[in-house]
């Protein structure tokens, strides 16, 4: 029997706001423990939350971009449970009336494009972080860092429309790209900006029933999600093939053993006792506000790709690569603004510059070469000031020092010689110095042209324009043929 996996994904994306969602504490990466906290995010007696409008707006932007319906009056609710890193004993979240609901995200699959339905998009606060004693130097105790407590999270819940690990990966890539282009989250995986929970079941191919669902929690990378889901699918299929049944449970992914393992705590059958948060008033989302957000919604990656093909005459592949992230697209467009040779700039970006970035483990945001410098370099090639070979050398230097190409070119005396009269003189000299080679050439050894050009380059210290040298050598040699 062939089994079909049924996969749903819950994604927590940390929103890009200056301050936390219900208090004025700044959102800071890697501050010393408990230094970005206040009585509000620590859940002290008597404190009250006040909603950060920016967090609301970013969630709204996400919901709109995911084609969701919007609740014009949305409410917050309390999700009640006990956990040491949850200072109030409840998390302010949304359940019954989320900001966005019933949306979709389109992904590309081997068998064409496919819409994955989105159940809902809502806003909630992050919890603190438990630090185990060993990490803090006292194995006998546990510690809690509340810096994360109250950081705004946008939770995106898909319907179980994903039927393979490949689709799952496409979904994650596409979603991350969307969040990046919307400028709602930095999506830095290593900082836990994106966290996942997957629900997995399998069923006989061709049936519509749903198998018993297993949830896998605490997945913090694409690799972990793919690995865990793959392993879980295999585990479930193996169970069913043995005639055993799948238990409904919550699992964790063990990266080392490459297996999913049941969670040990009793956290699996929770009753969160959701009820409307009485400390916050319902949020009204007006048509005007929605319209304004729709109008100012940044271009999506797909829209950008199409535009790059249309406006810059790039191939679809090039355009796709140059719109993979907002950073690369922004780099490209800034460079083109400085010198309009989209094809040339695109080639240099996807070729040598991408190579240098990979070598040094940098990305387009931290690229030492500015778009303006790259544009200048391409311009120097276009106006034949330097050769492509020289340019490669100059780019390497630019990347290492961050200096402008013109400075490097003039300092190293790299300017290529494009003076016809001068180069012709050198050509005549070279020909006169090699009568045997000239004779050989005239007798049919056409390939000797390379030898002559090489001699010209050598005589000019590599600075002669190679195309020019080539043309003049050929002219000079051919004139010998007709005159002889």
């Amino acid at each position: 029997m062939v089994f079909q996996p049924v996969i749903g994904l819950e994604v927590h994306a940390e929103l890009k706001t200056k301050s936390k969602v219900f208090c004025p504490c700044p959102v800071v990466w890697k501050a010393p423990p408990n230094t970005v906290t206040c009585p509000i995010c620590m859940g002290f007696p008597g404190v009250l939350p006040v909603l950060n409008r920016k967090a609301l707006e970013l969630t709204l932007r996400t919901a709109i971009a995911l084609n969701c319906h919007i609740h014009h009056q949305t409410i917050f609710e309390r999700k009640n449970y006990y956990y040491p890193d949850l200072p109030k004993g409840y998390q302010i979240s949304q359940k019954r009336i989320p900001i966005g609901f019933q949306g979709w995200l389109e992904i590309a699959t081997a068998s064409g494009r496919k819409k994955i339905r989105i159940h809902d998009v809502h806003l909630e606060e992050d919890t603190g972080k438990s630090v185990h004693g060993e990490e803090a130097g006292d194995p006998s105790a546990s510690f809690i860092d509340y810096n994360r407590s109250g950081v705004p999270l946008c939770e995106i819940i898909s319907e179980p429309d994903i039927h393979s690990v490949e689709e799952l990966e496409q979904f994650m890539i596409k979603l991350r790209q969307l969040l990046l282009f919307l400028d709602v989250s930095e999506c830095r995986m290593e900082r836990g900006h994106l966290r996942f929970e997957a629900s997995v079941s399998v069923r006989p191919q061709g049936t519509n029933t749903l198998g018993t669902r297993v949830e896998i929690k605490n997945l913090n990378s694409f690799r972990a999600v793919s690995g865990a889901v793959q392993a879980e699918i295999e585990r479930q299929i193996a169970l069913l093939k043995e005639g055993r049944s799948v238990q409904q449970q919550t699992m964790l992914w063990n990266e080392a053993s490459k297996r999913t393992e049941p969670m040990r705590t009793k956290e699996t059958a929770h009753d969160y006792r959701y009820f409307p948060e009485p400390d916050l008033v319902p949020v009204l989302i007006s048509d005007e506000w929605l319209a304004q957000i729709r109008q100012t919604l940044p271009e999506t990656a797909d829209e950008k790709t199409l535009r790059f093909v249309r406006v810059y005459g790039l191939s679809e592949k090039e355009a796709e690569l140059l719109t993979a992230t907002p950073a690369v697209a922004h780099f490209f467009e800034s460079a083109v603004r400085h010198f309009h040779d989209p094809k040339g700039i695109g080639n240099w970006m996807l070729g040598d510059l991408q190579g240098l970035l990979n070598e040094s483990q940098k990305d387009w945001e931290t690229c030492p070469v500015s778009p303006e410098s790259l544009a200048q370099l391409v311009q120097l090639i276009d106006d034949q000031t330097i050769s492509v070979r020289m340019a490669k050398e100059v780019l390497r230097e630019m990347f290492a020092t961050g200096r402008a190409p013109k400075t490097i070119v003039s300092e190293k005396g790299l300017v290529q010689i494009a003076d016809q009269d001068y180069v012709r003189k050198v050509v005549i000299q070279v020909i006169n110095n090699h009568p045997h080679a000239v004779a050989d050439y005239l007798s049919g050894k056409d390939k000797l042209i390379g030898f002559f050009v090489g001699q010209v380059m050598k005589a000019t210290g590599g600075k002669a324009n190679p195309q020019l040298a080539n043309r003049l050598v050929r002219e000079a040699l051919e004139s010998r043929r007709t005159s002889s």
Partner: protein
Amino acid sequence: MKLWQLTVQEAHRLLLKRDISSRELTESVLDRIAQVEDRVKAFITVTESVARQMAEEADRRLRQGEHVTPLTGIPIAIKDVLCTKGIRTTCGSRILENFVPPYDATCVKRLKEWGAVFVGKTNMDEFAMGSSTEFSAFFPTANPWDLKRVPGGSSGGSAAAVAAGECCAALGTDTGGSVRQPASFCGIVGLKPTYGRVSRFGLIAFASSLDQVGPMTRTVADCAVLLQAIAGHDPWDSTSIPEPVPDYLQELNKEVNGLTIGLPKEYFGEGVDQRIAQMIYGVAKKLETLGVRIEEVSLPTTEYALSAYYIIAPAEASSNLARYDGVQYGYRVPADDIVEMYCKTRKEGFGREVKHRIMLGTYTLSSGYYEAYYLRAAKVRSLIRRDFEKAFQTCQLLMSPTSPILPFPMGERTTDPLLMKMCDICTIPANMAGLPAISLPCGFIDGLPVGLQLTGPPLSEPLLLRGANWIEKQVGLFNCLAPLSVP
């Protein structure tokens, strides 16, 4: 006359004229506390040194004429449910016995800005859950009019302190009558403002959608002064109302013309001590002779208010009190694992009544019960609101007893939860509808004070205070101090 006997306004006039200093006034109040506190037991914490410092600062302000307000230099007591920076705030609970807040509640901050002098933090039923102050984790407070009886609750400490002259005024909080009922029991004035009129920031939550901070004073005018200080929008409380605050004192002395007062018949019927009902009717008759139109009205959902309240308040409380888990602050019983620590901490840290309500609230919010209980209670709540709206179409204010019963002997109702909860049948509807209501003394039965309650539409505090002020004049009970004999 002793200085501690002065009303807020009288003291203010003398302070302004420099006939007395805040230091003298404060010392007089502290002396009074020293004389009667072992019998009244109104305070969990008396803050003598803080009070002396604040009095000194107030005197400096008065001397230099710098930012002098009607509360500058006036000794005030604060219910121990309101956070006071650097001053222990227990909420009447073992679990917060040693909790010192790192911040001031907004209303406390405003009193500080106005130059008030804090004499102490008053006793209360644990987490404001109770109607007699007997559920304080520390000790019960006595009613200054009869030390064997309860002062009401949960703001019983504040009410007793005001009635005993242990402060000129106090702040209480009112979730189901916790300002008005003890005000009634102790013969003072107590106001629950419109929900959202006073910031709840720093008020340790019992039931967030019902809690309000309110003034407790010996005159209606003093009540207006205190409300003036604490009312107003607070950006730190999303439920606070962004409406400008009227000048309550100025509103107080406007003419009362063509007033129609409704008597909701449900507040005079079964379960109400008929001697109290007759007393309120008596006041109504007197007002009628003075030109007030008196009308009987009906609030048919009153009978469901108590039940709905006992769904909503415990539900919110069960969640609000979840933070007391021994992890960050407050009482902690060390244990081998976290769950055991939670259980032991909460078992020992909370009193019986609090645990009772947490269990009730947890149950009604549980999956499968939420719709049947919480959601239905929320619907009842909107029906109650509608009842009031309808009543206010024909009359401006509603008049009723504040409490259906007289102050009862200590211990009488502690073992019968239902009997205890019946104390609040006249006060709970105003909380459920978010309306302002005031209690003021209107007479005595068997030597015990009787409170009269006026309820108005949302944000009608100016009218409410004006009406109360006028009734106060007609009744002739002003600045009632309990006759505690001084040995």
